[in-house]
């Protein structure tokens, strides 16, 4: 008898509780006040963890009826907006309003960058990788080429003149041939490296490339003139004709090559300034001393 009374009381209480369920309603809008349709509204009971959901209509309005009294966490979310949560306490039978203002979500799209600018391009990356790889070889070979190039020019001082020996001329010729071969390989890696479209060249690379207009013809002409001079000397003749320009062309080629190298390596900082001063001094010295240099010594 007593159990029946208790059960009846519980059922009555539950019925009353359902009859006194609270309703949550409101509007989801942007910060500017514009309605956000199709926003998701989720009320989660802080006591039981049970959730009820609703979706905002065309005017941004939503209604969540039949909520038991208690505390809730209400989360508002919509595509393109930052979700927002608020806490609310509902009393039995109450119709409580809860509005939410959502702010646009922070994304690259919201910053206004076009998709073409934000999407990666694996092909372009592969092209850049290939270009850098080839230019890296170009750079290292160019540096290595400098060694026989200088040695060739220096040995030229001993290979020319009437008192020179065949051995000196042969050494000079071997060094020159080595230089030419390394130079050709260096040039190949620069020429064959993929070009990047739409890039306007600026900076020291322009001087580096401009110098090629001097050292490329110089590197072609020098061995030809050298071969002519070698042939003339081997016949016991005095070097004559355009072959006499072999030494001058070689020095100009070396100077242009050195400038091209320095242009892309040292152009700021203490070492760069020191190198620039040294280069300037060397060119100045060369310019002053060349007219007085012995004719024979300058030929080879």
């Amino acid at each position: 008898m007593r159990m029946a009374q208790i059960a009846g009381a519980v059922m009555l209480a539950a019925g009353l509780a359902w009859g006194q369920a609270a309703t949550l309603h409101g509007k989801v809008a942007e910060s500017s006040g514009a309605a956000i349709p199709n926003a998701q509204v989720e009320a989660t009971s802080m006591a039981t963890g049970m959730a009820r959901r609703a979706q905002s209509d065309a005017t941004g309005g939503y209604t969540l009826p039949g909520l038991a009294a208690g505390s809730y966490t209400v989360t508002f979310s919509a595509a393109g907006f930052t979700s927002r949560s608020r806490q609310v306490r509902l009393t039995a039978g109450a119709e409580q309003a809860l509005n939410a203002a959502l702010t646009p979500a922070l994304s690259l799209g919201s910053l206004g960058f076009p998709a073409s600018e934000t999407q990666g391009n694996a092909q372009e990356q592969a092209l850049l990788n290939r270009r850098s790889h080839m230019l890296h070889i170009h750079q290292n070979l160019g540096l290595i080429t400098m060694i026989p190039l200088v040695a060739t020019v220096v040995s030229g001082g001993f290979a020319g003149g009437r008192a020179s020996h065949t051995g000196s001329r042969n050494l000079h010729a071997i060094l020159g041939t080595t230089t030419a071969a390394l130079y050709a390989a260096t040039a190949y890696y620069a020429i064959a490296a993929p070009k990047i479209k739409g890039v306007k060249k600026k900076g020291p690379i322009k001087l580096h490339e401009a110098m090629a207009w001097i050292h490329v013809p110089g590197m072609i002409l020098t061995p030809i003139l050298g071969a002519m001079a070698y042939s003339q000397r081997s016949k016991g003749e005095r070097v004559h004709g355009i072959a006499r320009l072999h030494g001058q062309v070689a020095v100009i080629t070396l100077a242009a090559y050195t400038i091209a190298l320095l242009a892309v390596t040292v152009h700021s900082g203490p070492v760069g300034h020191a190198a620039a001063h040294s280069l300037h001094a060397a060119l100045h010295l060369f310019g002053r001393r060349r007219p007085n240099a012995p004719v024979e010594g300058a030929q080879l």
Partner: protein
Amino acid sequence: MKKWLGVAVLLLAAPAMAQARTWQLQSSTLTYHVVHPLHHAEGVSHAARGKGVCQAGTCNFLVAAPVKSFQSGDTNRDLHMLQVTRGAQYPMVVVRVTVPLAELHPGTLKADLEVQFAGQDVHYAQVPFQISAQGKDLVLSGTVPATLTDFKITPPELLMMPIRNQIPVTVRMTWAPG
């Protein structure tokens, strides 16, 4: 007199800043610094865009700039930078910052940064920035202590000598209330 006037302007400007719900990046200068045994180089970008949203006491900022927008004055170096940072594959550098609204006022701000760059996500904790007010705008300046290893970037070499691992990025941004 001038100093007191400045303080007064800052005090008046601070509440206005704290109440703003959104922020818009008006102008910016981002500069990376590279040191090689033979020279120093800098790359500058003015192409960053950014937004900030403040709600419930927290401000979220998003700043992004195309990697290729950094110009050093040397085409060759810029293309090489683009290659080593995988800039064609990951064309944007994106920075996210979350700051308590209460700390958004003139003075020193220590912010936690989430940086997406070169295909890596790197967290920098407590990076100090100086904030000053210019009318209603907010000017933020500081240096992000980035390194090549943070982003798994192979150090570029010149004459067989690699550049230094540290590539600090100095930042100067002007934010206006949205």
